């Protein structure tokens, strides 16, 4: 009925009067000109440094270039999906530990969760790449990247799951216990399935973090999108174009995942849990 459905950023302003409208129009034109000048300067810089030359971009017209990037993207996908799967399981386990009534288990789980959330994933990757070999443990490159990425994500997921479990109405547990289910059965048959549904949008948005973390795969020479991009750079001697294209692919993929998570959140009415903010790496 009234303006309560408009977004907050519009609600900050009232319907403009004639003076405000004029001012807005002038500022719109001025800012548009400034944006265009900015863009022109960027393009000019690319042009004068020869970065717009055909030799830097022509190989993107070849299917083989894209096939190679796609191969790398599939590598990224395999790592990301495997890591997501592992961290899902680990996340549930850690959450169960964290909410356990047995003190030592809950304390240990909490320390593990805080540890994985409080340490850079790059350090975890170096641990598996450089640290473990010093004590004689050699993993294949795939696992050297997938395990640390999973561990980093599992700490965050444990907290997401915990928020999900807390969001399940208490009456559900009480009802389940009152019909004679054991506490364990109550958790696995009643609470967890509902919690899982609540956190689906949050899980999808965490996938972005996993995808970002996989980009360090070149450290262990695993052929993901980033690593294949680096190979393309050496073969075509073109740093700028290749890095730009790979970056754009990552941005588009993560943007799509984020949009999916927002759409799911909107459809289900379950918010994206952001208390455990993502790590921008």
């Amino acid at each position: 009925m009234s303006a309560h459905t408009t977004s907050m950023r519009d609600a900050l302003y009232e319907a403009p009067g004639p003076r405000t409208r004029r001012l807005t129009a002038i500022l719109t034109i001025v800012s548009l000109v400034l944006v265009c000048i900015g863009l022109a300067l960027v393009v000019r810089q690319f042009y004068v440094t020869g970065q717009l030359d055909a030799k830097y971009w022509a190989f993107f017209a070849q299917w083989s270039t894209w096939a190679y990037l796609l191969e790398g993207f599939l590598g990224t996908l395999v790592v990301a999906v495997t890591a997501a799967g592992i961290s899902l399981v680990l996340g549930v386990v850690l959450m169960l530990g964290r909410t356990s009534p047995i003190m030592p288990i809950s304390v240990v789980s909490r320390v593990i969760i805080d540890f994985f959330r409080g340490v850079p994933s790059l350090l975890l990757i170096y641990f598996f790449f450089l640290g473990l070999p010093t004590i004689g443990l050699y993993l294949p490159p795939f696992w050297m990247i997938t395990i640390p990425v999973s561990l980093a994500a599992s700490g965050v997921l444990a907290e997401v799951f915990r928020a999900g479990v807390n969001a399940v109405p208490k009456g559900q547990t009480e009802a389940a216990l009152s019909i004679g289910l054991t506490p364990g059965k109550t958790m696995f048959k009643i609470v967890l399935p509902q919690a899982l549904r609540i956190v689906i949008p949050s899980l999808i948005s965490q996938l972005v973090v996993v995808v970002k973390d996989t980009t360090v795969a070149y450290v262990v020479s695993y052929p993901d999108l980033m690593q294949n991009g680096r190979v393309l750079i050496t073969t075509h001697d073109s740093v700028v174009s290749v890095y730009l294209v790979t970056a754009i692919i990552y941005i588009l993929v993560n943007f799509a995942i984020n949009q999916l998570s927002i759409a799911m959140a909107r459809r289900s009415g379950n918010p994206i849990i952001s208390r455990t903010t993502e790590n921008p790496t």
Partner: protein
Amino acid sequence: MGIAEILQKYGQNYAMAIFETLSMTLLCFVIAMGISIVVTVMRVSPIKPLRLVGDLYVQIFRNIPGVALLVLVAYALPNIRIVLPWKTCVEVTVVLLASAFGSENFMTGINAIGVGQIEAARSIGLTFTKTMQKIVIPQALRSAVLPMTNLLIATMLTTALGSQVPLNPQELTGLVSYITTDSTGLGILPFMISAVCYAGFSFLLGLLGNHIDKKVRVLR
């Protein structure tokens, strides 16, 4: 070699690395806050091109992986004649990433305010500027405390990107890979020292954030 020997040999390096990590974190966070305020103002302004640029900025830098951005800044920019010192490359990368998330936090804070608060401010005769000063900004800042604490922690973790370029002195992650290649047979201890530093600082910052949040939280 035990922990005592490692600290004896590399203690100085660790101290410097801790300083590097923390000072980079602080510097980047402060600059990122400044930029995220500017970007947020652009995003909530009624001027369409500014809104668009602000939204685009956030979408790019919240979705780009840190490494992908760092290689652009460190290795691609010199090709268009923008050459930055290594450390600046890391800082620019961290600032760009953190500011996008900072702006998102501010937007969430603004969205939580509610139209009613603004209508009430208008109807007691506050002008647009006063409404911003007295109602919108204070409420947005208060509800941003916890997300910004998390962002500060995330900023610290992101400075680990410094391990991907030659820094001197190194930060906590780069130092570990240096030590591990410098002397063999140290096992996993060098990692644990760095990890405990990171996790410890994260924990302390988290406590601080919770403490401030409890004091200023807006009850709704």
